[in-house]
């Protein structure tokens, strides 16, 4: 009941709510982190920082989104 009332009130798109987007940002950071420390391919290491930075920035922005 409460949930339906809350969803009616909020105009924020469902797909852009914090829970899902935070999980995506966390996954991006984790992938970037693994890319930075893996011993297999230099190219993965090269793109690790951009990946981590994108994830971290996304995480900061998303933490301000409604639940």
């Amino acid at each position, binding site marked *: 009941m409460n949930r339906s009332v809350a969803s009616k009130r909020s105009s924020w798109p469902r797909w852009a709510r914090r829970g899902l987007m935070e999980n995506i940002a966390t996954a991006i950071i984790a992938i970037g*982190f693994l890319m*930075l420390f893996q011993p297999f391919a230099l190219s993965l290491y090269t*793109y*690790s*920082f951009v990946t981590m*930075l994108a994830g*971290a920035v996304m*995480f900061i922005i998303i933490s301000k989104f409604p639940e």
Partner: protein
Amino acid sequence: MLDRTADNVARATPEPLAKKIRGISDKGLAWLFISPTILLLLAINIFPLFWAIYLSFTNFRANRPNEVVKNLGLANYRRILGDQDIWIAMQTTAHFVFWTILLQTVIGFTLAWLIDRKFRGHAFWTTIILVPMMLSPAVVGNFWRFLYEPQIGLFSYVVSFVTGIPPTNVQMLSNVELAPWAIIIVDTWMWTPYVMLICLAGLRSIPEYIYEAAEVDRASNWRQFWSITLPMALPFIMLAVLFRGIENFKMFDMVNLLTGGGPGSTTEVASITLKRQAFESWRTGYSSAFAIILFVAVFGLANIYVKALNKVKQR
């Protein structure tokens, strides 16, 4: 009656005079107390961070302050992220962080679990176990260097006694294979008590009645451990892992004292490479970019960890 008179007098007082009498407001007082801390934080943490970000895009060298500073754009980042030596330093750091955290968590939690049994003299043993943590890293580094000495070191003699290898052959700090493990052993010895202390706080926070209810339900000790002890102590264990993970990423003192990054570059962790670039090669802009990369890595890791910690706490 007296209150009413006081109210009337207060209302009759002109506003500028009333302000003067009241003095500084609560909000103003709060800002007055907080502002020195905020200023200190800005000066010590925030300003150097933004300054390092700025320098990371330049060719600035701290040993040539009068030279014209050129803007290089992303060149420093490109160079670092294409440098094979730095990639290897990252792998060395990852190896070091993984093994120290694993050993410290396993041993620390086991010790905490044993200490929590409250056997006779447990307070004395807690104090003894905590001693390494209280020592200065410089002292620990120097005395472990003596312990690792192949000729006179106690460690070499113990290894020799157990394995039968001559003590002069146990060259912990100059052997390529053993040197990383020498540092891992010292860090584990020094910081396991810290993990133990946090885990002990977690174990002591578990209410006794939960175990009593489990006893009534005839749950075995093994079942109690997996279903009560471990899940309830998990947020504390994760907190210890977070603290140690962040600390070990920037680990410098112990590696510098024990091996200095050698033999060759087998123990050259990221912080040693950073120090060499910043204060031996004097490539300040380049090392600032490297520091920013490490900062983003630790920041990202901390975000993941805090999220995981909140999830565990909500359960």
